[in-house]
């Protein structure tokens, strides 16, 4: 058994979501391998704006041993079945990208191909009518999926929409209860080993010196360690993803039931999010400063919000891109210090979670092995690059020509990796497959078809059965899924049940 003295001193800089998630996971999964100290400056309480997540966060929370109902109460969470995209492909259109599949394969062939065939024969139907998550979202219903893989009720998943400023403290309570230490103060300088360049200690504003073996940089865009100290290179993606500002504002919830999904509405110079929480709505306008002034953006946001504003609009600045090496020397950047992609598909927490998992899998045993560090970067980079491509698709797959912003994204040259996917799908409705990381085939299909990219050809195996039989099968499926959803409770009712589960 590793003794206390052999544990690595891990110093986490920054106490937001990324920092406290890292602290929580490290104390839970590597209690014998490290001592965790998190350093943060005192935070000013701000009213939360709202953050949406991906289903993977459920695994993270569960692995910590936390109860879902408790988690949802602490973070004011609602359920999320997907994202409802408005006006991306064309103004006046919308589609919901679900967490889930389109029905299931019929005779080994994806449903998309049957749908496409029937469309070619004049029997058009809505592809999204075959996604149980979409039907649930449209009816504001929610029930958790089942695990029996044979049942249609296993073909969807869910995530949460919560108050981001409540999530970090929730993680902090867990981390501190399980052995993490916290130091409040500002870092005013960073000591490095003169030969290797490794960070050896932080010097605080009160003169304290905090030494460590491994440093996790969760200091956000400031990137105190990986950026300012190590000068680690940044790969810029703003030519593909030009949005570099956001203005955010919470508002009161409208009357009526809370929607179990996030909404993203394309605007003249970016897009607007709407994230419903238990007792307020988070709103924001993500935009390109080259195409829209800050004042106009704030005004557009305020105008578009349904309820009453609960705070002044708050501005954020960022750039799309990532570190070329998220783990450089003995500094591991997690969260915004590592990379940034706009929250179009709610991937921020997912990327932090993934990075933390990789760190646990590749945690140094003695000295940091260069091979382990390289492997960490390889795994983290794959995720960033693929998500980048997926986000670019949302902008590029458009017919909009109503502003310079849309003309730019519609006509830009996209990464080869994305162009190949587009070419393949356009030809035959196939998606390049990989099983590690995001996004999987149904997600690509949702955005491509949702934004008007319809394949020219399709799997000819879907042509084998007579038209009438295929039409009947599809109709039965729509009806069956509708029946399953009809039996589910409303979202509000499901949330109440969750709250009651704690009280019980």
């Amino acid at each position, binding site marked *: 058994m590793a003794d206390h003295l052999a544990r690595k001193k891990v110093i986490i800089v920054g106490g937001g979501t990324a920092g406290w998630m890292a602290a929580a996971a490290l104390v839970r999964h590597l209690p014998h*391998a*490290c001592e965790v100290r998190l350093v943060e400056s005192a935070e000013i309480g701000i009213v939360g704006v709202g953050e949406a997540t991906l289903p993977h966060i459920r695994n993270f929370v569960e692995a910590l041993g936390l109860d879902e109902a408790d988690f949802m109460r602490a973070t004011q969470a609602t359920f999320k079945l997907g994202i409802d995209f408005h006006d991306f492909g064309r103004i006046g259109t919308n589609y919901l990208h679900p967490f889930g599949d389109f029905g299931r394969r019929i005779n*080994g062939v994806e449903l998309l191909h049957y749908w496409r065939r029937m469309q070619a024969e004049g029997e058009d139907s809505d592809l999204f009518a075959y996604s149980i998550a979409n039907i649930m979202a449209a009816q504001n219903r929610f029930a958790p999926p089942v695990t029996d893989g044979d049942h249609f009720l296993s073909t969807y998943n869910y995530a949460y929409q919560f108050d981001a400023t409540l999530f970090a403290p929730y993680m902090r309570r867990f981390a501190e209860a399980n052995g993490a230490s916290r130091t409040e103060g500002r870092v005013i300088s960073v000591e490095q080993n003169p030969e290797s360049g490794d960070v050896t200690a932080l010097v605080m504003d009160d003169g304290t010196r905090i030494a460590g073996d491994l440093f996790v940089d969760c200091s956000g865009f400031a990137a105190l360690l990986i950026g300012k100290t190590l000068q680690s290179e940044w790969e810029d993606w703003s030519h593909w993803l030009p949005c570099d500002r956001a203005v955010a504002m919470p508002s009161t919830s409208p009357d009526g039931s809370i929607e179990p999904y996030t909404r993203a509405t394309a605007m003249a110079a970016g897009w607007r999010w709407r994230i419903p929480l238990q007792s307020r709505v988070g709103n924001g306008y993500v935009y390109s400063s080259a195409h829209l002034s800050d004042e106009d953006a704030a005004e557009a946001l305020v105008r578009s919000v349904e309820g009453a504003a609960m705070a002044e609009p708050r501005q954020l600045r960022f750039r799309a891109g990532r570190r070329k090496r998220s783990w450089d020397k003995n500094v591991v950047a997690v969260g915004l210090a590592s990379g940034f992609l706009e929250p179009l598909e709610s991937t921020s927490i997912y990327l932090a979670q993934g990075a933390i998992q990789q760190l646990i*899998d*590749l945690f140094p*045993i003695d000295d940091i*092995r260069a091979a382990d560090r390289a492997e960490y970067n390889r795994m983290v980079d794959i995720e960033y690059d693929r998500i980048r491509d997926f986000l670019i698709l949302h902008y590029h797959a458009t017919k909009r020509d109503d502003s310079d912003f849309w003309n730019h994204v519609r006509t830009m040259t996209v990464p080869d990796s994305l162009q190949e996917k587009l070419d*393949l799908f356009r030809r035959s409705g196939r998606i390049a497959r990989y099983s590690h990381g995001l996004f999987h085939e149904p997600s690509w299909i949702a955005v491509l078809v949702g934004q008007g990219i319809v394949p020219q050809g399709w799997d*000819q195996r879907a*042509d084998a059965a007579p038209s009438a039989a295929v039409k009947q099968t599809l109709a039965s499926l729509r009806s069956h899924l509708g029946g399953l959803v009809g039996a589910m409770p409303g979202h509000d009712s499901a949330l109440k049940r969750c709250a009651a589960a704690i009280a019980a």
Partner: protein
Amino acid sequence: MTPQPDRAIRSICIVGAGITGLSAALAFARSLPMVQLTLVETPADPANLTDRLPSGLPVMRGFHELIGLSERDLVRAAIATHRLATRFDGWSHSGASWLHAHGDVGQPADGIAFHQLWVAAHARGDAEPFGHYALAAVLAEAGRFTHPSPEPASPLAAIDYGLRLDPIAYHQFLDQRCAMLGIVRVKAGPLGVERRSDGGIASLHCSDGATIAADLFLDCTGPSATLLSAVDQAFDDWSAWLPCDQFMVEDGGSAEPGCRDTIIATVSGWRWLMPLAQHAITATCLASAFADPGETGKTVSVMAGARPHPWVHNVLALGDAALTMAPLLPINLTLVHNAIVRALTLLPGRDCHAVELAEYNRRTALEACRVRDFAALHMLRSGRQSGALWQALASTPPPDSLGHTLDQFAARGRLPFYEEEIFGPHAWAATLLGLGVLPVAIDPAAGRIDAALARQAMARFAQSLRDIAARALPYPEYLGRMTATN
């Protein structure tokens, strides 16, 4: 009238009526009833390993279901027997035998993979050999068998098995099925290939003057890949890592059916003993550069490697035409099956556009890369100290992806992820540990598991497997019951 009159493939010509060609014919006939199929029989090639030693991983059962073959029928006709594990003798650093079993090994604890728990326990002197925690291995060593349970919570759900097939009987069985489906067959001698202006194949010319045209040609001709090599000659040579280039398949005499294969390392290669229903087969593999001239008299040549572009224009190579290797892994049928399913899933338009073929070739190459790596692992880390072949291999640098796996596993027991692996983490761990590649350090996360509790849990678990095995039927009896009643 097809909904895609200008796109759909209308006709497919399958060249080669060995096990690969027949399997493709059955799968394509069922999946594409409107497509005209022609099966061209070409002379059998003794170097075609899929015909000499057809063997597959557990996933092959899914393919049999797809083409309507019942395991029960195959067993009753004395064609198929069940393989739970393969034992490797003389093939490790310590000299001890070890098993590569199908199915699960051990149980994870608190999210930590079992092999990491085992490594930690082993370091403390608390672990039995790795194979003792695999139910399929325990059953196989006891000469007993039972089918896995479909209930995920049942201990019997940890079992999995592949099938070995009597080559001649299996071929006849598939042959009969093709006839039942009414698949058109043509016997042909040497074939002439007429090319299209775009590089594809327009038609085949038979020696009797007949011409066969088709939208798509499946090259199932074996290692010579007669059709594919007419349009693309690229071949990735793996002989640096897999130098065994001669093999011989012989009747091993009558033997009781067994559910365990044995592979024995020899000075110049290895021998594979495969018990079938009514007799055994022995495959002997040699590296000619290291063998006595006398040994290679009756052998057939094989060059280890794969076609980097198995699908070019309207020619798709399957089976040994796509990938060849001296028989060390029970996978040749699985590679055929996977390729057929992949081809059906990605079936391109009639024009076989490069964009569509690229995805097929990409996935196939990823799969081939890890097959090469898994085989090369056995050769480069055999642990054998004597024999010029093995000494030369021990100092041969591995391919990059295998080097990466070796580095990660030796350092910390981690198995890096690769796409399209047909061998899962259990297979990799069992082989690495069996060969004697032991991680020098325990994974830090595994350190949180209480050592005493782990020791107790593992000991109980290993005993529970022995208890289950003791209650299972001896394999010949189990087989007898399967074949006797309905």
